[in-house]
C-alpha cells in the first residue's frame, strides 16, 4: 500500500502526462523512488532563455504536499534569483508561501515565470544581480550565452535548431584558416581576397601557422603574391 503522499505524486504525474498544453514535464528517475523527480520546461519567449531546455531536480519531502518540494536547476542558468554555481532557487512559493494546493506543475510554472521576471533586489546570486543592475546588456548577453551553451537554446530566435548562418560561416572560416591567425588573414581579406587565397599566399611566402604579427616586409610579399606580381 502506498503512502498518501505517494498517491498524490502518482496522480500529479498522471495529470501532467495527460496535459500537453502547459509544456511542463516531470518524470521519475528511478521507478522505485517516487520522491526524486526531474522536471523540464522551455525558457519563456522574449527572454534570453527563449527556447532553452531547462531541467530541474525535484526532491519531494516525506510529508509532501504539506512541505514544499525541494527544487534546484540542474541546467546552469545565469539569473539573479538562481545560483550560477549550484542551481539553488530563491522563490517564495517554494518556501514560506507554499501551500498544499500547489503542485509540481504549478511550481514548475512559477520557475518558468521567474525566468521572465528576474528580481535582482532579492538575489540568490549576488554576482549576477550586480551585473544585471549595473550593465543590463552584458547581463542579457551572458544569460543568452549560457542558455545556448547549457540549455541548448537555438542561437537565433528564428531558427529552432542548429548553429546560425553567422556561426556556420565562422566555423567554415576557422576550418579554412588552417591554423593561421585570424587577424593576420583578415588584413588581406579586407583587400578583397578569400580566406583560402590568403592562406595559400601566406604558405608560399613561408609564413607558418601560429606565427605572430607579420613584419611590413613579409606583409608586402604576401600582398604581391596575392596580386600575382
Amino acid at each position: 500500500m502506498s503512502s498518501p503522499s505517494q498517491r498524490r505524486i502518482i496522480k500529479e504525474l498522471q495529470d501532467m502526462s495527460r496535459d500537453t498544453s502547459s509544456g511542463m514535464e516531470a518524470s521519475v528517475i528511478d521507478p522505485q523512488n517516487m520522491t526524486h523527480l526531474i522536471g523540464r520546461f522551455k525558457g519563456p519567449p522574449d527572454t534570453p532563455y527563449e527556447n532553452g531546455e531547462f531541467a530541474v531536480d525535484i526532491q519531494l519531502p516525506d510529508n509532501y504536499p504539506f512541505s514544499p518540494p525541494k527544487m534546484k536547476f540542474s541546467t546552469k542558468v545565469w539569473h539573479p534569483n538562481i545560483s550560477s554555481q549550484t542551481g539553488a532557487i530563491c522563490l517564495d512559493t517554494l518556501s514560506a508561501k507554499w501551500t498544499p494546493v500547489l503542485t509540481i506543475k504549478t511550481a514548475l510554472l512559477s520557475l518558468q515565470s521567474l525566468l521572465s521576471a528576474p528580481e535582482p533586489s532579492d538575489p540568490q546570486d549576488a554576482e549576477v544581480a550586480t551585473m544585471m543592475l549595473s550593465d543590463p546588456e552584458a547581463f542579457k548577453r551572458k544569460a543568452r550565452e549560457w542558455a545556448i551553451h547549457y540549455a541548448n537554446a537555438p542561437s537565433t530566435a528564428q531558427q529552432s535548431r542548429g548553429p546560425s548562418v553567422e556561426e556556420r560561416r565562422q566555423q567554415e572560416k576557422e576550418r579554412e584558416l588552417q591554423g593561421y591567425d585570424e587577424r593576420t588573414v583578415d588584413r588581406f581579406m579586407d583587400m578583397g581576397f578569400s580566406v583560402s587565397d590568403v592562406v595559400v599566399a601566406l604558405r608560399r611566402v613561408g609564413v607558418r601557422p601560429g606565427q605572430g604579427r607579420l613584419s611590413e616586409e613579409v606583409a608586402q610579399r604576401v600582398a604581391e603574391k596575392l596580386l600575382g606580381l
Partner: protein
Amino acid sequence: MKVKIKSWIAVASWKWDVPEDEVCGICRVQFDGTCPNCRFPGDDCALLVGKCGHSFHMHCLLDWINTESSRGLCPMCRQKFEYVEQ
C-alpha cells in the same frame, strides 16, 4: 393477479453537496471519496467548507492547519480558514 410484497430491501445513495467533478485540493481525490488515510467515505471522513468558499476533506485540512507553516490560512486563498457550521 395479486402480488403480495413480503419484504423489500431499501437502497439509498448519497453524495456531498458539492459540484460533482470537484476534488480536494490537498489530496486531489474526489470529495465523495475519502481522504488518503480513511477507508470509508461519509460522516467519518467529512468535508469542511470554509467561509472563504473553499472546501477540503476535514482530515486533509487539519493536517495542513497543524503544520506551523500554514499559519491557519486556507491553502487556496491564504485567508484565515474558518469553517461554516453545518
